[in-house]
Each structure stands twice: as C-alpha cells, then as structure tokens.
C-alpha cells in the first residue's frame, strides 16, 4: 500500500518555482532518501509532506487522504518531522520539549498523564537523551538538542518520520545509534522514514528507495543502485565520481574524482 502519494505537485515562493510538477508514491514501511543539489527543492518537499506548506497545484495524499482535508492534530499524529534546529528563546527542560510531542494525542488544555510520560521517557531512552531529561534544552550541545528533537518526533508516535539533515550534528557513535534505531523502528513498527540528506553514501547504505530532485523536478526515483550512477550524478551535481560496491553490503559507494 502506498502511504504517501504526490500527484503533480507544484509550489512557488512569490515568483520562484521551487517544485515543478512532481509525482511519486512511497510504499508503506520504507526508508526513502531525498537527495539533490542545493536549491533542488528538498526542504520544500518535506514541508509539503507535513502540510506546513500546501502545493499550489496538485495534491498530497497521506494514507489516501488529501492533506488539505486533514485537521492539524490528525496530520501531527501521522507525520512527525525532526527539524535541523529549534530556536530556544524561553528555557524549557529537555523532558518538557519531548512531552510536547504528545500534544496531538490529547485535548489541547489537558495535563500529561502517566502514559505520556512513559512514552516520552521511552523515546528519550531510545535516543540516548534520558540522562539530560532535567537539563535545560538551550544549555545542551547541538548534538544533544538534536537527540531531544528526535525523541520529540518519536513521542508523536507517527507513521511517517521526516528527517531534515538530522545526522549532521551527531557524532559517529550517535549517528550509528540513530541509523540503527531508524532501521529497527522501520522493521518492528513499520515506520516509514523519509530523510533529506547531502550525503549520498548515507542514502545509499540506508535507503530502500531514493528520490533524486533537480531544479524542483523529479529527476529519478528508484533503488540506490538504479539512482546512484556516475551518469546521474554527473548530470545533476556536475561532478565526476567513481561508483563501486560497498565491501560489506554491496550498496553503491560514491567517491569523488578529484
């Protein structure tokens, strides 16, 4: 079953067309990477997928339903996003930030109950952030904040998780931990993961499917082996690369020719 279906979506910011007649479907419980050069529309696409922006023409179906017809809380119960950074003007504890992920599940004025705390703590445990639950969010390091934001997204108990360059602030250990967590959630809870990245090898090793965007258009969609060819990369990124096979899992491995 397809969990997300984009039908001819276009989007323009005042007079710049950033998304030009893009169509695709993502199957349920897949890990999808969205790649493309700067300005190719990756972030805009994420915003359209979680209904922060609505396409000017065309439509996005989530589980077969048009995002325009869904209530905000309903969308937030289905789609969660881990942003690159979150401004911290007023100080909240890390735990409070994660508990905010429970908002779509309850009436808007209520207090969190035991179940909310349990889910929030489990999410923090998974992202290795439980140890600073009672630290102030704005006093944490960028990587620690990132883990808290991932925990918040998990606390939403979404079916679709969107990641916007979410590994950039993480050190190697937490990157590995996070990627294996994603695969585990994908396997066990059938979470669909859609991540935007500049790291083509990260995409190659972790994604079932890659969507390659170029100038706001869908350039290609397919398996890593289909998409990450020297010809495609030359065409879209304008660089020469070698592509060989990863010695461990046989996924394509991209190396710059310099």
């Amino acid at each position: 079953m397809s969990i997300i279906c984009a039908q001819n979506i276009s989007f323009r910011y005042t007079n710049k067309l950033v998304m030009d007649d893009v169509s695709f479907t993502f199957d349920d419980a897949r890990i999808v990477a969205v790649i493309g050069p700067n300005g190719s529309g990756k972030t805009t696409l994420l915003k359209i997928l979680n209904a922060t922006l609505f396409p000017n023409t065309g439509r996005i179906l989530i589980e077969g339903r048009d995002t325009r017809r869904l209530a905000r809380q309903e969308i937030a119960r289905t789609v969660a996003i881990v942003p690159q950074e979150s401004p911290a003007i007023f100080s909240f504890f890390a735990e409070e930030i994660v508990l905010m992920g429970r908002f779509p599940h309850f009436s808007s004025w209520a207090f969190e109950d035991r179940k909310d705390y349990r889910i929030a703590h489990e999410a923090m445990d998974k992202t290795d952030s439980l140890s600073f639950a009672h630290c102030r969010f704005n006093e944490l390091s960028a990587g620690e904040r990132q883990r808290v934001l991932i925990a918040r997204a998990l606390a939403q108990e979404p079916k679709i998780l969107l990641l916007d360059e979410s590994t950039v602030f993480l050190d190697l250990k937490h990157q590995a931990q996070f990627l294996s967590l994603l695969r585990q959630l994908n396997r066990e809870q059938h979470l669909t993961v859609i991540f935007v990245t500049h790291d083509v090898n990260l995409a190659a090793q972790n994604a079932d499917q890659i969507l390659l965007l170029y100038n706001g258009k869908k350039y290609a969609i397919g398996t890593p082996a289909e998409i990450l060819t020297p010809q495609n990369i030359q065409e879209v990124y304008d660089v020469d690369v070698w592509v060989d096979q990863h010695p461990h899992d046989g996924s394509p491995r991209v190396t710059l020719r310099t």
Partner: protein
Amino acid sequence: MTLSRVLQISALLLLLFVLLSLAALSLGAIHISFADVVGAIAGWLSGKASASEEELILFSVRLPRILFAGIVGASLSLGGVVFQALLRNPLADPYVLGISGGSALGAIIGIVIGASSFYLGVPFLAFSGALITVFLVFIVAGGSKGVLLDNSLLLAGVVVNSFFSAAILFALSIVNSMELHSISFWLMGDLSRVALKGIAVAALCLMVCFVILYTQARKLNLMVQGEETALQLGVNVQATKYILLIVTSLITAVAVSLAGIIGFVGIMVPHMMRLVFGSDHRLLMPAAALFGASFLVVADTLARTVLAPAELPVGVITALCGAPYFIFLMRRKGRE
C-alpha cells in the same frame, strides 16, 4: 507539569497576595495597626460592621483600591506573558509595544466624542485602540511573515508609543472635559479614581479572559518553539494567534481605560516568574497573574505612602524600577 503543582503554587501565591493586601490595608496616610485591620475584617465577616472612621477608610477607600490594583496588575502581567510568547521576545509587553498607549488614546477619543453616554462605549473604543495598535505593530515589525526581528519590534513600539503620547497630550490640551481627569492619569497610571462599578467590570473581564487564555496555555508552549514547529505538532497556529491577540487586547484595554498607562509590570513579572517556575504556560499564567496582582498592590502602596499625604501616580513607581530592569534584560539578551 501536573495540575496539583499548578494548584499548590497558585495557592501559595494567593496567600502572598492576601498577606500583602492586609499589610497594604494597614499602611497609608492614617496608620491603622495590623491588629485593628484583622479585627475590623473579622467583625465585617461576622456581620458586625461599626461605622467608625477607621472602618470607613479600610472598606470604602483602601480595600477597593487594593482589589483594583490586584486586578490591573494581574491583567497587565497576563498580557505580558501572552505577548512575549506570541512574539517570542522576553522584552514584549502591552506597554513597550504601545498597546497601552493605543488603548488610552481610544478611551480619550471616546470621552471627547461623548461615547461615555453609551453603555461600555469608552471601554469599547479603548479595546479598538488596543486592537488597531496590535495589528499596526505587527505590520510595522514585519510580522506578516511571522518573522519578528527584536530590534524592529522594539523600534516599532518606541515609535508607536511616542506618537500616542503626543496624540494624548494633544487631545487633552484641546478639550477641557471634567471627565478626562488629569494628564498624569493617562500617562503614568493612577489607581485612586476608579468607581466600584469599574472594579466589578474589570474583575469580571479578567476572570473570563483568564479562562479563555488558560485553555490556550499548552498551545502557547508549542508556539514559543516557533510557529512552524507548533504547526507540525498539531496546533492550528493562525486561529490560536487571533484568539490570543484579541483576548489579550481586551484585558489590556479594560485595565488601561480604568487605570491609565502603567508601564513595565508586564515585563518584570513574567520574567521573574519564568526564572522561578520555568516557561510552561500552564503554570506561568496563574503564577504571573497572582504575582502581578501582589506586585501592583505593593507598588501602589508605595505610591500612596512615600510622600504621604501626597500621592504619586503608581506608574512612576513601576517605571522607576521597571526601566532599569528592562535595560538589564536587554543587555543580558544581547550577550546570549
């Protein structure tokens, strides 16, 4: 955050307000001892009111004024909490943003054109003035895109404020109406001139507005994370924003049309409460309202007593401690 924590802290702050109010009852041009105050209240509660001069001062002069100070303090602090959250700026409040000024101008225009002969005519115009200013400030500061730069916001407030001050002075110099009271009432605030009916209106308005704002408290926690984040977490941002702006303008307008412009309460009180209790609005709102009430009672008691029997406008006291506090906050913010 749990309900019991909110109730416990609210109860403590309510107790603080009651104790400070009792102290304020005994202080004034004529000193009435604390024991006499308590005795008089006990007598009044048991229905044995004596018509002594002391009791007349206590119940007809000081008590209404203290209650009024509490209501105005709570209203302004609540306004500060909401504006700071909506604009994600700890320096925002109804006074700095010029909303108090707009509201005062609305009230004065109302009195000049004779709106006071209509029921709620003047408060309505004060409310309109506040609302127009809110949208004006948002437009001037580039709020249509949701991105509000700190500097542009404060500058917009300064400009709007000086314009309204000039307009108020102009209006007061061309008319000579008994109803316009003194200039200091409008520019520095004064709690001594209100009638019982005004206090009742303000109290009712505060209670209704508080309930409405409190239902939005959890959404406000998400809104201060950024409007986009709030949207992604399931908040209907536009609708929430309009409800909050309208309700907050209303409490500001009622407070200003009855008490004049009292500055800085809406900055100092929310900031102190955030330092002590954190930023969760489910606790911050009642805490700021109750502490704001205590704060203005103390400020007004100072205003009545430091030069007794002469009185200062209460806005002089709040500005004297508020302006340095504002600069302290601004410098701290600049360093961060």
